[in-house]
């Protein structure tokens, strides 16, 4: 099989959520190993993985797939990403950027945040998920560890959304140029503007678009 065919198959199997070999059909794990052994450029392998995630993402956006399909695809992609780790370390392959995400302190809701993290990761970003009830200092520390990272803040409650401003202030006091994006049920573009956020996204796909525009 040509390298091009293997890359195409990587995209197909990623979209189908086939992480490992089932019966006589290779999964993403085996296909990525084969592609690299056959001399495929690691960046082309990454593009194939992202393409596969894009396919299932488009199906999801069209109402033809559900989150479990996205999750299976993400798991399959991560199997392939494991093979690319040495190339990320050496700098031969670069991600689109680093995204530090968390639910603000006082708030325990994480389903929306997890969906954003999964979608952004599937789009080629490195995602650092700090979890829920995250203090301002933890966001600042994560940016110190990942210089240039974009920060994503999530909140579901009207009484916790106000904590976003404190986090933005704390992060920017230590890292003045940090871009911070916000989202969550009660959040609006107006609120994002009011607290000095770099942007607002109403859903995971919007977060990917926003990050792309900020990274451009």
């Amino acid at each position, binding site marked *: 099989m040509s390298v091009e065919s293997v890359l195409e198959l990587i995209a197909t199997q990623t979209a189908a959520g086939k992480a490992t070999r089932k019966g006589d059909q290779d999964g993403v794990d085996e296909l990525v190993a084969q592609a690299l052994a056959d001399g495929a450029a690691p960046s082309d392998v990454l593009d194939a993985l992202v393409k596969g995630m894009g396919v299932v993402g488009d199906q*999801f956006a069209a*109402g*033809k*797939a*559900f*989150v*479990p399909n996205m*999750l299976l695809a993400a798991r399959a992609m991560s199997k392939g990403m494991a093979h690319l780790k040495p190339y990320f370390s050496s700098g031969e392959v670069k991600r689109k950027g680093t995204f530090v995400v968390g639910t603000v302190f*006082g708030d*325990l809701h*994480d*389903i929306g945040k*997890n*969906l954003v993290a999964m979608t952004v990761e599937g789009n080629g970003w490195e995602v650092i998920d700090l*979890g*829920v*009830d995250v203090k301002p200092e933890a966001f600042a520390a994560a940016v110190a560890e990942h210089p240039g990272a974009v920060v994503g803040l999530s909140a579901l*409650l*009207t*009484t916790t*959304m*106000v904590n976003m401003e404190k986090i933005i202030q704390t992060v920017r006091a230590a890292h003045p140029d940090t871009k911070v994006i916000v989202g969550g049920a*009660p959040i609006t573009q107006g*609120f994002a503007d009011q607290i000095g956020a770099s942007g607002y996204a109403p*859903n995971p796909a919007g977060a990917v678009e926003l990050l792309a525009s900020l990274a451009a």
Partner: protein
Amino acid sequence: MKFTTLAVPDAAGLVFGQAPKPVTTRRGLTFGAGPVYPELNFTLPPMEVTDSTFGQVVEHYRSTVAGAIKHAQGLHAAGLVFEFETLLEMTKNPAWGVELVQVMEALCEQAWTEDGFPTAIRLTPNDLREFDRPPRNRTSAHLEQMWQLFDQGAAAGGDLLSIESTGGKEVHDEALMMCDLKSVIFALGVLGVRDMEFVWSQIVQIAAKHGRIAGGDTACGFGNTAMVLAEQGFIPRLFAALVRVVSVVRTLVAVEQGATGPDKDCGYEGPFLKAIAGIPISMEGRSAACAHFSPVGNVAACAADLWSNESVQDIKLLSGPAPLVSVEQLIYDTRLLNQATAAGQALWLRDLHAASDAPLDPQAFILMPASVIEISRAIVAQATPVAAAVAGATKALDLLETAHGAGDLLIPEAEEAWFDLLRMQLEDTPTDEGSLVEEMLPLWGDKFIPEEYGL
């Protein structure tokens, strides 16, 4: 399973305003004996709750409760229930929660003594145990604050005690995202049931100590999370409908422990509890769109004894503060229901509510009185919660598949494959707790602490 037969054995008996076991409050409101009453819940506008802002918080509650009582009287309502669903800070600092109950109680008592207008306060503290990851359901330091607010809040005037308890949610959240029905049954039918036994045995004691009413729980963090995710297209509506049915065995535990109702509004499993245990229930539907969207806006009213808005932010609208807008909407809704009862047309109006929603969404279809009775009968025929959850979900799937096949239920094309996928999951789920636990522990052992569930 404590309940082995149905308190409401046929669909004709499952109707708004009527419950086999009515409940009466100290100011003379009786739920389930005819009239449906409005239940108002409201929350603050975007603001912090701190020492420096607490005075403003008190004023929000004072002015809203006073305004709601005045507006309800102006609209000739027969009574009004306030749900005080605390914000996290008010359970973390129980003194704040208690002070707000006192503020509300003073206004309610004034309306009663001066005007004879009956009101009641439902006190719903937060389940703070979620702040520990994984949660320490039985040993969390947060329990002290929760019990303190229940105890002192009941003494201060909380008539109906409720909670949205979260036992099992640490597994359920992820199971939802994977549409993993077997794990949902484990989270609700094993972890949820066990935690409900722990939580509700204590709430029932607190209610008895103060002569208050142990209202009931809600699987809001489970079934409603599924409903909202389905609404956003994240998971199939079919799956969300089955999650709702599975949640019945979990929320029913409050009643098994001694709760008498009215069950809490956002528990859309309430009609099943009414059918099985005969308790009155609070429900929310079209007039709760201020809090969340849903596909069950009308059918939810079919068996309601209280009718709620879920929650609304205290912001100003053109007509007035949003909570007063909700009061008015709820009063007109309940006025119509009560007029139908008075005219002997309750079943006719009930069936219009059901028929206007049920063909359009599986979550609405299972809330039709006829569906509720059939599913409830399948549940009480089983000896254990796990077996009941599997049987209830299987019956629901049968009903939905039959209705879809007959052209009586709309299912999006992308969801049709889920009939088989869900049935395979149900057939693969052990019906005894021991086998299910054995199967689930390797999968979820890092998400929860077995000892905290008595496992």
